[in-house]
């Protein structure tokens, strides 16, 4: 694989996070970099990406399941080692926050979009990623006013 083309990795947990990512991917034809790597948590694929995109699963985990988090970190590390993404774009949640952490350690730039279901504060996984995210978007204008460095640019639902 040529390294001249930058690698854009997109990912989300299953459920609402994935719906939000797919809503955004409907606009990918307008981007200067197209997604070539796709990261999901469970056995869910997407039709929102070109067929040659490479798919990976990193498992579900949340704040209450440390062992699952370790597993997700190990799987994330393998994906990052192999793909060396230049940019990771995600709509959350915790497993993708861990993936972002790994990717950041390998030099990736991080675009985090906090879920629209976060109404009055940023999600816990978002708070983990915010200190090292390169672009952090929220989907309610009130949250942009509350958190410095966070941007509101629209909504996915």
């Amino acid at each position, binding site marked *: 694989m040529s390294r001249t083309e930058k690698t854009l990795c997109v990912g989300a947990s299953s459920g609402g996070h994935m*719906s939000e990512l797919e809503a*955004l991917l409907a606009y990918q034809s307008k981007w*200067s970099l197209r997604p070539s790597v796709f990261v999901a948590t469970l056995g869910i694929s997407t039709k929102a990406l070109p067929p040659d995109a490479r798919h990976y699963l990193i498992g579900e985990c949340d704040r209450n399941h440390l062992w699952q988090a370790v597993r997700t970190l190990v799987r994330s590390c393998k994906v990052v080692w192999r793909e060396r993404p230049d940019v990771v774009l995600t709509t959350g949640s915790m497993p993708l926050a861990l993936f972002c952490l790994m990717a950041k350690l390998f030099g990736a*730039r991080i675009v985090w979009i906090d879920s629209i279901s976060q*109404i009055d504060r940023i999600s*816990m996984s978002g708070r983990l990623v915010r200190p090292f995210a390169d672009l952090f978007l929220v989907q309610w204008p009130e949250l942009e006013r509350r958190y410095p460095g966070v941007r509101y640019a629209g909504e996915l639902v």
Partner: protein
Amino acid sequence: VIFLTVGSALPFDRLVQMVDGVLPSLQLQEPVFAQIGRGRYKPKHFEYIDFLPKTEFDKAFDEASLVISHAGIGTIGIALRTGKPILVMPRQEAFGELVDDHQMLTANKFEALGHVLAFSTPGEFTAKMSMVREFSPKARHANVEGISSAVEDFLARV
């Protein structure tokens, strides 16, 4: 048909049981069909299935006159895109249904904006079911393009 769904990931017995308990007293003219996930509670008053493949889920959603669901943003999003009236019940941390109470806030916010009807108790469910025939969900105009532009501004500089 009224379509009841608990979403793709987790069971939600409290919702299925609440609808099953209240249903006889509502004396509805149409049947309920439910997707109950890995729930342990098996409803007595309506047909159900554990999971539906995506295409069949979309078909059930499309054919329903009304959707009853957990307050997950995936399901709410489909209802908003298709203009389908939807009643949502938030999963709660106190019942071990989620790691936090963001679905409570989601349900309240989207109800306040006129997009959904929300309930948490059998009494509220009965009340919202009597309101729903006059309820036409307010259309939502999500600015997805705004987010896409912010992403592209970023990607162009990478």
